[in-house]
């Protein structure tokens, strides 16, 4: 069954997490919950990225004793998505931190974390 291979599982998990994250962002009124949903969304993308780079039955892209240096190209998984995901994680962290800061800020100002309480800017 293709579906139960690890890359498919992680891909599907990624997409499910993506949908869960999106659902959380648009349905949860609580700002903290929205941020958590965003984190889920973020994670889902990381998962997708890693899944995309995965090649079955291969090892990590570190050329050590377990890898034949000359045949490395046939033994390791794709290193690039892994590099990318590293960056993406950091970016996600940054955004999450900022979101939390803003949430803090909002809570300090209005003592409320309900997103629909903040409608002063509209139209």
């Amino acid at each position, binding site marked *: 069954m293709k579906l139960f291979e690890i890359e*498919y599982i992680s891909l599907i998990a990624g997409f499910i997490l993506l949908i869960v994250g999106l659902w959380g962002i648009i349905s949860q009124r609580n700002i903290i919950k929205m941020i958590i949903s965003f984190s889920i969304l973020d994670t889902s993308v990381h998962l997708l990225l890693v899944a995309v780079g995965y090649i079955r039955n291969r090892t*990590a892209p570190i050329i050590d004793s377990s890898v034949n240096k000359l045949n490395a190209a046939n033994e390791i998984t794709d290193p690039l998505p892994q590099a990318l995901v*590293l960056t993406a994680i950091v970016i996600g962290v*940054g955004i999450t931190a900022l979101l939390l800061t803003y949430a803090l800020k909002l809570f300090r100002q209005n003592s409320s974390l309900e997103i629909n309480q903040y409608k002063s800017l509209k139209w």
Partner: protein
Amino acid sequence: MKILRSSALLIVVGFMAWMMFNLYVTYDSRTELNDVAAYYAEEGLSEVGAANLVTSIVVTYRGLDTLGEVTILFLTAAIIGLLLKTEKGTRTTPVRESSEFLMTGARILIPVITMIGVYIFINGHLSPGGGFQGGAILASTFILLLMSISNKKIGHRLLDYTEAISGLSFILIGVLGIILAAGFLDNKIFSLGTFGTLLSAGTIPIIYSLVGLKVGAELSNIILEFNQIQGDEDH
């Protein structure tokens, strides 16, 4: 009303899911490295000299990304500082002193964790790990520190300096790459060294150290910022 809203949102998310499903069905599991990845696998060693190919990509091939990444953390720290600026230093209620247990534990653990962190970023080009991971671990030390001495104030200055100097050095090394080698962030400023040793892979260990320090400082900074407004919630 609520049901209406939920079902409407559900439809939207449903469509989204359908869209993503369409994307999913185009996926077929890979069997081969593509050209770019293959190049990294084949030439990465000789060009960069780092055992960890991910590291060689992160630090060298896609060094600009990494610079951006560091910048993002830097930015985040700066923004959080900016945002929380007015609320700092107004702690009125004295914070309870940390427990003996925590203080003792911290005293033991902090050096160990710091060491692990440093190890991880110094060895980033050889084994899994690197500047970001190491930096994050360093920052966890800082959390521990903060928790254990919760009633003391900690200045930003050291962290700021660490941040600035490591960041500047990163860029300087990058610029040196243009001057001494083939391009910005080229690691071949000096010889690649022996493959697999600590001081190999050109500037990668240095950069990763700098990144580790910087990330650690930045994350710590963020934590510090948050921590400093903690306890104000009472009013």
